[in-house]
């Protein structure tokens, strides 16, 4: 089916029997993966899930509403540190995660409301400043270990110990998978359509009864909350967090994920996160060449395919389906 003919069809998350087969196989593969590959790959897959969450959150903000953020590592850091503080105060795991999400969402309001008046380069620099400011505040805050950082333990929930890489993989898979599903649903709801309307023509959207202030702030809040959740998952994964780890380069990498994957497509963010995380992993063996190669790949994607990897995939798919037209 090349074109969507009915609204029910548009609403469906998985369209057509082929897609069901692919989704089923992908799901089965993700569940079976820890028993198929070596330990360090399980760790990196978990890292990919966490990065994919941030890339998705950024995709909602940049791709759907067209607001740039160069400071998403700040939200990730906020989530990770709130999670640490909450667990130190004896919060149970899920409450600590919830606290991380809520604080990060609150930060999203703090950044989102002033940024209503900003656009383009001004917003980019303001969010860049937010990321750097968070990093510097954490560097100088002794309660959370200042620049030396702090240890993060993996959780024990209802007597089940998630210390092992495999066990933690499943925990992250469930939480990240659930949020990914919610975000994909959000994109197809009236909220997602409102987001895209504000991106494409804010004045026209306003004329159609979409409250710009409300939806732009909402996008920031959702994005910050998801990035905060990613932070709460990231801390226990790496085991030791330092402010230095949440630097500008990380924020840039998140933006690269969404754009290289395909701006405006949520599956593109997943693809981009996989691509960048994989590239990082492959390049980590050639240390001195890694930064140059990384930059060159990014330049190549931007020069050759504006719609990103997912956009290219859509073109191939359409060509295949409509062939020989």
């Amino acid at each position, binding site marked *: 089916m090349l074109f969507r003919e009915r609204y029910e069809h548009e609403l469906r998350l998985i369209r057509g029997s082929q897609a069901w087969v692919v989704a089923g196989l992908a799901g089965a593969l993700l569940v079976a993966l820890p028993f198929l590959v070596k330990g360090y790959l399980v760790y990196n897959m978990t890292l990919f899930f966490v990065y994919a969450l941030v890339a998705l959150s950024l995709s909602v903000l*940049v791709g759907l509403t067209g607001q*740039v953020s160069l400071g998403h590592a700040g939200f990730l850091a906020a989530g990770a540190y709130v999670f640490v503080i909450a667990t130190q105060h004896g919060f149970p795991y899920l409450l600590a995660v919830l606290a991380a999400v809520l604080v990060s969402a609150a930060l999203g309001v703090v950044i989102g409301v*002033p940024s209503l*008046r*900003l656009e*383009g*380069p*001004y917003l*980019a*620099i*303001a969010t*860049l*400043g*937010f990321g*750097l*400011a968070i990093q*510097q*505040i954490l560097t*100088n805050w002794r309660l959370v270990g200042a620049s030396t950082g702090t240890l993060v333990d993996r959780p024990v929930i209802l007597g089940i110990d998630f210390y092992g890489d495999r066990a933690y993989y499943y925990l992250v898979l469930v939480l990240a998978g659930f949020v990914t599903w919610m975000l994909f649903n959000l994109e197809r709801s009236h909220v997602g359509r409102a987001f895209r309307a504000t991106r494409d023509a804010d*004045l026209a959207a306003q004329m159609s009864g979409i409250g710009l202030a409300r939806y732009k702030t909402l996008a920031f809040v959702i994005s910050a909350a998801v990035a905060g959740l990613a932070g709460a998952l990231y801390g226990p994964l790496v085991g030791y967090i330092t402010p230095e780890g949440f630097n*500008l380069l990380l924020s*840039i990498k998140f*933006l*690269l994920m969404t*754009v*290289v994957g395909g*701006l405006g497509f949520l599956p593109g963010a997943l693809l981009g996160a996989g691509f960048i995380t994989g590239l990082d992993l492959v390049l980590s063996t050639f240390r*001195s*060449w*890694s*930064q*140059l*190669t*990384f*930059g*060159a*790949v*990014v*330049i190549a994607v*931007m*020069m*050759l*395919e*504006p719609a990103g990897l997912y956009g290219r995939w859509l073109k191939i798919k359409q060509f295949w389906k409509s062939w020989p037209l």
Partner: protein
Amino acid sequence: MSGLDQFVQALVSGASIGSVYALVALGLVLLYRTTRILNFAHGDLGVAGTFVAYTLLTQLRLPFGLAFPLALVAAAAIGMLVYLLLVRPAKNQTELGLLILTLGLALALGGLDALVFGTDNKLVPTVVADRILRFGGVSLSLVSIVTSLLGVVLMLALWALLSFTKLGVAMRAVAQREDVAEAMGLPVRTVLMATWAAAAVLAAAAALLFAPTTLLNPNMMLDPLSKGFVAAVIGGMNSLPGAVVGAYILGILELLVGLYVSLEFKASFAFLVVVLVLVLRPHGLLGRADVKRV
């Protein structure tokens, strides 16, 4: 040191670092208002020029008066190449796409510098042998005075270029309306190439002047670049005088905050200022809002 001396000292040192910020911010604004590109590779373009100067000074043992202009020429060439080989042929010509392109370029250039020259800190020879001059309780380093003066000279040169030459007028015309400029028969491509060259020269000059205060390494320009962005945004991204004003305000305020409030939060203070300014004036102090026609 008395309180007044400390205050004057902060003002003078702030003005000195402000000139570096101003050169960075001018380059960013020059490019942004003509091409709508937020150039994150600006710092790395400057560092590349500084590495050229470093090679000329230490390997070929050229005098400073020769190495400095040659490095600026090399930077201009790099800037033109970036425009011709990367920016013009890029298929993704959206504002965000080009921003990402410059991010990729920044990573690639930084990686290249690290590969060729290594990541260790290098001492760059200075224009004059450094001496500390004392005026009452205020002490000034000779290098920082010369740096500030050179910065001001370069700013004046840019002003003269834009105001009194045909190329400058063409640059301003392209910045205002690219399509009309093209219709009037201006060679837009050449003008854009010249803009890239001029921006790269400003970047290299800023890096060359900044190198003696820190040490030369591939990440040297990270802090001045982010401060340059802040200065440009405070002043307004499409106003060249705004960039200079923003840079000096930022340089001086930073040192005053370090002196009277808290040394630790000196660096994050810049971003507090930017948020405050943007909340009150979303298009900077001297910038003008883009008029959107519907």
